[in-house]
């Protein structure tokens, strides 16, 4: 296990390295707490109706009838996990390392450097749990797998390391819901490394419902091989106090495709710094980043997007739109395009504004009240047409978006 020691050594060096984006969090405080915390979660019952309705709010099917498998983690503790489908493994990270190291070693910290910043380093050195999903060649999962990460209690640090590996010509849909119970103060870090094999397709839907006492720093890296496709949709239905994430998708293979979209709502004094990057490395790779930000109260939202084209016939499009619902909110859009060859085609559009009164009056002329008209416009603004996801997922996202827009 020389490689693991090397990884740990690198992580230790990066333990105080801040992220280039987002407010800095004092992790040492939480790490100290962690060392004292007993591993057993007390008083948590997944069958509790209040717990279940919370889980449902972030897209988790508690009955699990329409899911191919599940993984639940509360704080540091893995609660349950299983797969219904032959050819699909759902494991904990520890189990995967111990029993499937021959497979895992080629993917462990390969999509994200462990010394990227103190958050990745902390996940390696102090993290526990995380799911590992391995989908064998030619296995196509119709119903989504779901994973759920919950924060519970006070001054909690949750730092799982997740890995999804799709073999060749495989297909999987993953839905991840992250939320909290009992208004904890705490930090949710999460490293996610996704590998999409040749000719495979992965759709990843993540729904975050946080409270303003929490800080969230997910770190995601995706590698897509020849003819592979990655579709992700991230919905922040209620923000934490601070959130910073910047998933990086590397379209390594020929004719690969990625569609990365996000809908973020900023409330209170939250600071939301959400971006995505797609690197078009393979010939004929194409990528699209779409983001919608809604700023209410005194929130600050920074919406980043970057597409880098370094391969022949690569194509990318970036669309970044913000809607301000208050005078004290700030939205900053930072779209970046970087082309390194002359037959790369990159485009972007960005806009930030308020709801146009004329649109409200127009809808009122169809019989809606002022508030109804406003919520129709907000609902429309948040709707992103995501091609290639199953209807059940689309319906779930639609209902989540409807709930958010009715509350704004």
């Amino acid at each position: 296990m020389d490689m693991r020691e090397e990884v740990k050594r690198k992580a230790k060096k990066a333990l105080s390295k801040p992220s280039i984006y987002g407010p800095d969090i004092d992790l040492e405080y939480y790490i100290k707490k962690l060392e004292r915390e007993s591993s057993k979660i007390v008083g948590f019952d997944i069958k509790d109706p209040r717990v279940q309705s919370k889980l449902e709010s972030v897209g988790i099917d508690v009955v699990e009838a329409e899911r191919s498998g599940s993984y639940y983690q509360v704080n540091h503790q893995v609660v349950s996990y299983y797969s219904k489908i032959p050819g699909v493994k759902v494991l904990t990270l520890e189990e995967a390392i111990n029993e499937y190291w021959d497979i895992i070693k080629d993917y462990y910290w390969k999509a994200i450097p462990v010394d990227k910043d103190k958050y990745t380093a902390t996940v390696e050195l102090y993290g526990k749990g995380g799911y590992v999903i391995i989908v064998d060649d030619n296995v196509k999962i119709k119903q989504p797998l779901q994973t759920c990460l919950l924060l519970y209690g006070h001054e909690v640090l949750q730092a799982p390391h997740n890995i999804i590996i799709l073999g060749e010509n495989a297909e999987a849909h993953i839905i991840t819901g992250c939320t909290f119970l009992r208004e904890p103060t705490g930090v949710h870090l999460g490293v996610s490394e996704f590998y999409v094999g040749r000719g495979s397709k992965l759709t990843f839907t993540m729904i975050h419902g946080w409270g303003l006492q929490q800080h969230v720093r997910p770190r995601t890296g995706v590698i897509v091989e020849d003819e592979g496709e990655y579709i992700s949709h991230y919905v922040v239905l209620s923000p934490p106090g601070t959130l910073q994430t910047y998933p990086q998708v590397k379209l390594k293979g020929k004719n690969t495709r990625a569609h990365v979209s996000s809908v973020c709502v900023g409330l209170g004094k939250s600071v939301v710094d959400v971006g995505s990057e797609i690197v078009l490395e393979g010939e004929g790779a194409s990528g699209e980043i779409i983001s919608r930000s809604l700023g209410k109260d005194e929130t600050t939202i920074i919406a980043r997007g970057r597409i880098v084209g370094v391969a022949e016939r690569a194509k990318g499009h970036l669309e970044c739109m913000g809607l301000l619902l208050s005078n004290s909110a700030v939205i900053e859009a930072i779209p970046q395009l970087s082309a390194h060859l002359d037959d790369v085609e990159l485009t972007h559009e960005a806009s930030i504004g308020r709801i146009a009164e004329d649109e409200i009056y127009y809808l009122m002329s169809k019989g809606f009240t002022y508030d109804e008209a406003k919520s129709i416009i907000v609902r429309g603004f948040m709707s992103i047409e995501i091609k290639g996801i199953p209807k059940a997922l689309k319906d779930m996202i639609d209902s989540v978006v409807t709930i958010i827009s009715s509350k704004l």
Partner: protein
Amino acid sequence: MFALEVIGLTVSVDGKRILKNINLNTKKGEVVLLLGPNGSGKSTLVQAIIGNPKYKIEEGKILYYGEDITKAPMEARVLKGIGLAYQIPPKIRGVKVRDLIIHMLRKRGATDVMNELDKYASLLKVQHLLDREINVGFSGGEMKKVELLFTLMQRPKLVLLDEIDSGVDVENIVLMGKVINEHLIKNGTSALIITHTAQIARHIKADRAYVMIDGTIKCEGDANKIVETILRFGFERCIKCVRWSIWT
């Protein structure tokens, strides 16, 4: 019985007076044209009738079937049975035509609307637009036809059509005229139809017409006579007409 009575109406927008002392009416079941050159204030009048808060009523009254609706909120007027097809409707991103129509009708308690929607959409040849975002990438004619579709689905008792024919090709004007005659203006529905080109007037059986110039009504009379005069001589003739000046 008047479906609509506008009495001594003066309207301003952003502090600027656009309409002065407008008197106009539409009887139950009557089809009335409102003609006038661009910028004469025709759209301001229908926006004031529907109750757009941007259009401030300084003086005068609006009666709908005898009820004073001058101060009624916009959506209340619509629910009472006034339908407006916009001249230039805005884009509503992320909202599909079909979804908004269903939402609009559910709000009124209508349940089975799909058959009717399909019927009218196919009459207007806009089935392909039902699952598109409202007015996003629509041509001028498509926008007008979708506005007409909304209005048809509302089953209004008083319909206001604002320049439904401008920017529309001849074939579509004929089509829209036919749909308006056969499906919109029936069972006692009244209509106030604004047009500056008078093109739609050739395809609709209108009873009376008004001519508006510079924010005032200059003329009122038989629809055919007025339309004929305007198509031959343009609005210049109206401005110079001494007989008609008694209206100012």
